[in-house]
């Protein structure tokens, strides 16, 4: 078994890297999917700056995204959480799929999103905010035993207008473990590269390597409490991504709360590394002909 694991690591290290012109958003999804056969490995963290009576927390997560076809991207998430003065816990995993129904680029490009979540109530990564937002006041010892099998769907609409990307998401989530209603959420973002033309030289700090923008996200209530933007968390967040090298990128976003729910500020940051041709290499490794 260790021999196979070592071989897999060597294979990952030898496949070609690729240019990952990554979206800078943390919550909003646009219509760009992974290229077929590429594997993207990303680590992110959501750090919550507390209000009075809350505790500082950090919720790291790892994301493995794979381009199954040109119109289907599948991602696996592993997530955890550590709270100051409390404990550090594993909060579960998610399996996300995004499908692009239309072949060509249109003014408005829809993406269908379906995710299964096997998490617990201590989850604080806040990849989406639905209902009234996460519980960030109760201790982990109370939250972690409460399991949540959730099904989440999104309608993603995204548009490219000159160099700008404009995207909006509407989220519906259902906890299959509890007899509670549906929870709703939204995200909206826009972003553009800092330079439209690529320079002829290799450079790390050229403006073309940076994408900046803004996103807004929050909850929209539940079927039980009512579809409403009141009594839930809403954030506004500048976002920036930096193409560190051809195959890696760094992302940063400070999200500021617009309401009294949730954390005062969410500091989000992450690093992504993309491997091109991972699918064919993996198939070859297991004896396939690719």
């Amino acid at each position, binding site marked *: 078994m260790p021999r196979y694991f070592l071989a897999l690591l060597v294979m990952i290290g030898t496949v070609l890297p*690729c240019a990952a012109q990554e979206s800078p958003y943390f919550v909003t999804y646009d219509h760009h999917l992974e290229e077929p056969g590429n594997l993207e490995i990303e680590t992110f963290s959501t750090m919550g700056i507390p209000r009075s009576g809350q505790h500082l927390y950090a919720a790291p997560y790892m994301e493995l995204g794979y381009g199954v076809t040109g119109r289907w991207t599948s991602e696996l998430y592993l997530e955890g959480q550590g709270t100051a003065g409390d404990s550090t816990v594993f909060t579960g995993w998610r399996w996300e799929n995004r499908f692009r129904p239309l072949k060509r680029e249109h003014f408005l490009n829809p993406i269908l999103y379906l995710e299964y979540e096997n998490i617990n109530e201590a989850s604080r990564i806040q990849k989406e905010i639905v209902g009234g937002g996460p519980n960030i006041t109760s201790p982990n010892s109370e939250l972690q035993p409460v399991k949540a099998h959730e099904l989440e769907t999104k309608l993603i609409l995204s548009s490219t207008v000159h160099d700008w990307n404009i995207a909006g998401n509407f989220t519906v989530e259902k906890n299959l473990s509890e007899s509670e209603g549906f929870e709703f959420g939204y995200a909206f973002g826009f972003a553009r590269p800092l330079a439209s033309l690529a320079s002829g030289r290799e450079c790390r700090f050229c403006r073309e390597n940076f994408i900046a923008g803004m996103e807004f996200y929050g909850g929209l209530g539940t079927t039980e409490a009512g579809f409403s933007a009141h009594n839930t968390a809403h954030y506004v967040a500048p976002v920036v991504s930096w193409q560190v090298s051809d195959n890696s990128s760094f992302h940063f976003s400070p999200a500021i709360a617009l309401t009294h729910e949730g954390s005062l500020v969410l500091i989000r940051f992450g690093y992504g590394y993309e491997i091109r041709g991972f699918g064919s290499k993996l*198939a070859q490794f297991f004896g396939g002909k690719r």
Partner: protein
Amino acid sequence: MRGIVVTVLAIGFMTSVFAQNVSYQQDPKWQAPAEALARANPLAQKPEATAGGKKLFQRNCVECHGATGTGLEKKRAADLQLTAVQQQTDGALFWKITNGNTDRGMPSFSRLPELQRWQLVLYLRTLTPTMDSQQK
């Protein structure tokens, strides 16, 4: 029960990894519409932008089309030096880069700024046909 669910989901994820179709064949249906064909390259009078196009090509296209654009056989990618490709208008090439042909393995590059896609078109024009590609 939970073990079965996890196993089924794990198999589903691994199946999705192997389900990819990387083979490429020229698609006669992949044609740019008339309005796209007529679009002129706004960088046509700026040959200095070609260097940036080369860099973008190396970052985004070499993986499938090869360093000289002849197309890697194992990827079934198009030979960009072929007359059939070079005879297409700038607008047609721009449209194909923008939209991709996702069912045949060519991704959409609409995530690149518009001018960078035109830079790629500029660079594609510099790919000189070789004897090998002319015989294809």
